[in-house]
């Protein structure tokens, strides 16, 4: 028998039809389905340019069964804040019926961390009643795996290649977008992973219920850019959580809480090994780099534990059976 969340979701209409041209095993469409099916209200979606937009909106066809708007790469936040303001104005004038409508924007890490940051920042600062979901696959996958500011340290991309002279891959650490969103003082910020659908759907539901801007940062494994098996997409999404590379937490009205505590914190090497983009680390036997990545992860995780303080959940472990 499905649990309560899935029973609720199974009663909702399918938001994203099949037949789109996303790669086999892409997590972006899984995230979209899980997020939108967490609410029963009608949804308006804005989409930044990226894999998701390109593959679901090949003119004249569309995969979306919900209202959907795409404008440009840099302005998913601005576009959706305009839609939301128009909706409020028309409702106030009585030109459209009183009805609860949710607004959600989807952007990849390129459209969120880099190119769309200014419009997202403005939308969050103005406090529009919208949810911004970043599906973070850690590079510009749509144009052929170029590095972005979300690419983790040591990852091979076509613009941060691991070669014979520069053997390290990307030599900079990733940007902490969740912290940047938090600095805007918006009412709801969360980090989630599609591997734990209960966590993602719970956070999506809370984000939709929040009045004001909400930001969800969701890890999205990419079989193409990460050189992994398509079948392992959600296994990797869970492994990222269990190695504390991608901790799950939420900040609601300034109150921080960890929503998932791994049963045992796995070493980061288990997360690096299955991925082709870190293959050079093992080929060169670069233990210094592995130690550096592990130290970064440990430091960030300890920061979160300190911040959670006494509010660390008693029940650890996965929510799947």
């Amino acid at each position: 028998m499905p649990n309560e969340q899935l029973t609720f979701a199974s009663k909702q209409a399918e938001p994203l039809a099949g037949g789109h041209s996303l790669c086999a095993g892409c997590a972006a469409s899984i995230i979209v389905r899980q997020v939108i099916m967490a609410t029963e209200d009608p949804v308006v979606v804005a989409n930044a340019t990226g894999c998701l937009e390109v593959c679901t909106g090949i003119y004249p066809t569309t995969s979306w069964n919900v209202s959907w708007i795409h404008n440009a790469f840099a302005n998913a936040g601005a576009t959706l804040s305009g839609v939301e303001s128009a909706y409020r104005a028309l409702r106030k004038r009585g030109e459209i019926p009183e009805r609860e409508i949710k607004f959600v924007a989807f952007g990849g890490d390129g459209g969120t961390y880099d190119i769309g940051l200014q419009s997202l920042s403005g939308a969050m600062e103005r406090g529009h009643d919208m949810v911004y979901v970043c599906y973070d696959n850690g590079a510009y996958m749509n144009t052929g795996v170029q590095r972005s500011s979300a690419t983790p340290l040591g990852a091979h991309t076509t613009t941060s290649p691991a070669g014979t002279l520069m053997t390290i891959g990307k030599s900079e650490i990733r940007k902490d977008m969740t912290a940047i969103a938090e600095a805007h003082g918006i009412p709801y910020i969360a980090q989630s992973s599609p591997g734990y659908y209960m966590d993602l759907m719970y956070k999506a539901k809370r984000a939709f219920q929040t009045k004001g801007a909400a930001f969800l940062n969701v890890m999205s494994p990419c079989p193409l850019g990460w050189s992994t098996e398509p079948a392992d997409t959600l296994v990797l999404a869970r492994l990222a959580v269990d190695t504390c590379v991608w901790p799950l937490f939420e900040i609601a009205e300034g109150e921080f809480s960890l929503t998932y505590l791994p049963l045992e914190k796995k070493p980061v090497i288990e997360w690096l090994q299955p991925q082709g983009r870190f293959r050079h680390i093992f080929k060169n036997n670069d233990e210094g780099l592995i130690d550096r990545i592990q130290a970064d992860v440990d430091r960030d995780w300890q920061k979160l534990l300190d911040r959670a303080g006494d509010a660390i959940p008693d029940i650890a472990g996965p929510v799947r059976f």
Partner: protein
Amino acid sequence: MSSLAPDVPANGLPIWDELPPGGVSEDAGSTSRRTMGFWRGGGQRPLIDLNLCVQCLHCWVSCPDACFILEDGQVTCINYDHCKGCGICANECPPMVNAIVLVEERRFG
């Protein structure tokens, strides 16, 4: 060539003034009429054994291509027109249930 834009394009697609303003696509979910099943190629196809299935819906919620068709909240079949054979469903099916298996595509001819 006297005219830059021919009145009737050779490919039979609508010309510019027949398109809705703003490039609006009015046919929601129209990619569902596309066939993407050929992407499985020589790969694998998931088969579901509904006698073993406990209807936990993990496959349905984890499918990137919305292939699992629900009737009254129960998984009834897989849409092979959309399935790209990624195999996520077989991984997500609980280990003690194992109702979904991946079978080599060539066995179906």
